[in-house]
């Protein structure tokens, strides 16, 4: 449970990058793109972020049943907090 706030912050961190880059992209494309294109771009941005987050987030969840130890899960959390500067 200690890792929950890190999950929250990492999600927020990634979402901010995603929406900011997505907006820049849509602005560049201008008004002459159709909804289909817009939707494809939105799905692209979400897909990349989700797939990149999948590994780290999965390794923040410790269900007590598999061979990952709790210690390892906490080490993952500390490393992510450091690497994404999530403590501040």
């Amino acid at each position, binding site marked *: 449970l200690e890792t*929950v*706030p890190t999950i*929250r912050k990492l*999600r927020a961190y990634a979402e901010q990058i995603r929406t900011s880059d997505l907006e820049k992209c849509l602005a560049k494309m201008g008004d002459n793109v159709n909804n289909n294109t817009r939707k494809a771009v939105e799905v692209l941005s979400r897909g990349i972020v989700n797939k990149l987050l999948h590994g780290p987030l999965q390794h923040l969840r410790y269900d007590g049943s598999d061979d990952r130890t709790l210690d390892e899960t906490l080490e993952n959390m500390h490393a992510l907090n450091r690497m994404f500067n999530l403590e501040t």
Partner: protein
Amino acid sequence: PRKQELISHLKNGKNFLRNQNPENAFFEFKTALDLAQNIKDPIEEKKAARGLGASLQRQGKHRDAIKYHSMVLSISEREGEDSGNTEAYGAIADCYTELGDLEKAATYYDQYIARLQGD
């Protein structure tokens, strides 16, 4: 025509959110939700519910936000079509985290994480 109106309220809502005006965003999404339910358009209904949830989160009203994000999940179940569910699970978990209920947050994050890899 009503679909057009609906789309335009969703768009306004998004713009208000972007411009840090969650109160006005809420009203736009609320109108959009009513319209979507009226013309029975579940996809737009989900978008409106998600927007309402996001507007409330920005105002710090996490408990109310959970209701609207959960609405996305119920619409999915009703329609047998699960678009938007990944984001809804993540957003509900975020709300529970803010409310300090880490136990519930963890349950919803598990659902969210389990859905991250697919398309």
